[in-house]
């Protein structure tokens, strides 16, 4: 099942509802990075709260989405990693690197807002 991508203002929200195959994840990556340019998004939120497994491929793909979105001008926040998934990821040595994380959607939106303010100040 392909992941729906919602647009809210200049933020894209992708909520992963069921376990994804590697091919589906790659498709999500391509669609997201494409849409970031199409709608001139400034933020991307990826909700993974429905996932109970996060393997190295998924981690790498999330990282790829975040880095390439940043190159196209959008900041990415990964939302809703459950305690079990977080613990398993740390045990397996999987890292999201510089990708931002937030507890839930509220926090992610607040974080994007904060990020935007910081950028504006820099300008």
């Amino acid at each position, binding site marked *: 099942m392909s992941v729906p991508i919602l647009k809210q203002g200049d933020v894209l929200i992708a909520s992963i509802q069921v376990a994804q195959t590697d091919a589906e994840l790659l498709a999500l990556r391509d669609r997201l990075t494409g849409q970031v340019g199409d709608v001139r998004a400034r933020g991307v939120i990826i909700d993974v709260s429905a996932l109970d497994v996060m393997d190295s491929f998924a981690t790498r793909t999330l990282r790829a989405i975040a880095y390439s979105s940043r190159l196209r001008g959008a900041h990415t926040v990964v939302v809703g990693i459950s305690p079990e998934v977080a613990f398993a990821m740390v045990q397996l040595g999987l890292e999201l690197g510089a990708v931002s994380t937030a*507890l839930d959607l509220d926090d992610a939106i607040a974080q994007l807002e904060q990020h935007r303010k910081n950028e504006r100040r820099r300008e």
Partner: protein
Amino acid sequence: MANDLVSEADSAVAREMGLLSEQAVERRLKAVALGSADLARIARARQHILGHIEEYTAGFFGYLGELDDAREFMRNRDAVEQARRLKLEHLIAMVGGQYGTEYVQQRIKLGRLYSRAGLEMRLFLGAFHDLLRRIGATLLANATTEKEAFDDFMSLNKVAFFDIGIIVDVMVFERERVISRQQEAIRELTTPVLQIRDRLLMLPIIGTIDTHRARMLTEGLLHAIRANRARVVVMDVTGVGAVDTKVANHLLQTVSASRLMGATVIVTGLSAEVSQTLVNLGVDLAGLQTIGDLQGGIEEAERLIGYQVFRAEQRPSAPPFPSQV
């Protein structure tokens, strides 16, 4: 005969100690060098001993009754009564010539009874020695030559040491089990996650951190982060005495896992010695946000969330710094 006397718990202990296999029992018998010549001598001594077992048992508990240290044990009438019965069976089995798994299970039962009732090992050894002295005296009185009495006694002694080996092992095993149960209790007690402000948690760690505890601690913290929607966690390690590479890695894992859930972790209370150890070990703590003491950590956490704390009389009249957000 033994099976109906041995409870489920006794068998469980035997299994955990790895004493239920024929090979394990054989190795133990080999350790005391019990051979066929010994079995023949024991069979010869048997008739003399069986006539006196009541007397030996009474002597064993009489001996304990004389000792001040054993008073606590002797006051436990149920235990003493049961031990008396088991001791009688023990003496019969001791000269029975069958030293297999059933015999071992009976010894384990007696050993567990002693340790549950709080009979100290040295007291048991003292009383057992006295028991052997009595048996020796009987053998000496009934044998035709002193040499024969001595040989019979030494063969029986092998069985006695075989018994002591098992009973001591059981008592040590039981004691270790109590200790590990207490450690478990302490572990659970000392990993509270406390909320000190809305969305601000505190995790005071006290004592030593091993892999098991680090895991429980991390799991507890991650669930608390979700339940309290925490944004910042102050992890205080003032109470952690020793930190080595392993412990540091555990701390780093906890911090990374919390970050994956969107929470920032501030580590406080790394003492001068601990931080020097870490530097000497070459542990890379670059990924950690550390602040000297707990107070500083909480102040920093409040700042991150956007709290400003003032004393009531110093409260600024204007709304506090809205422009700073």
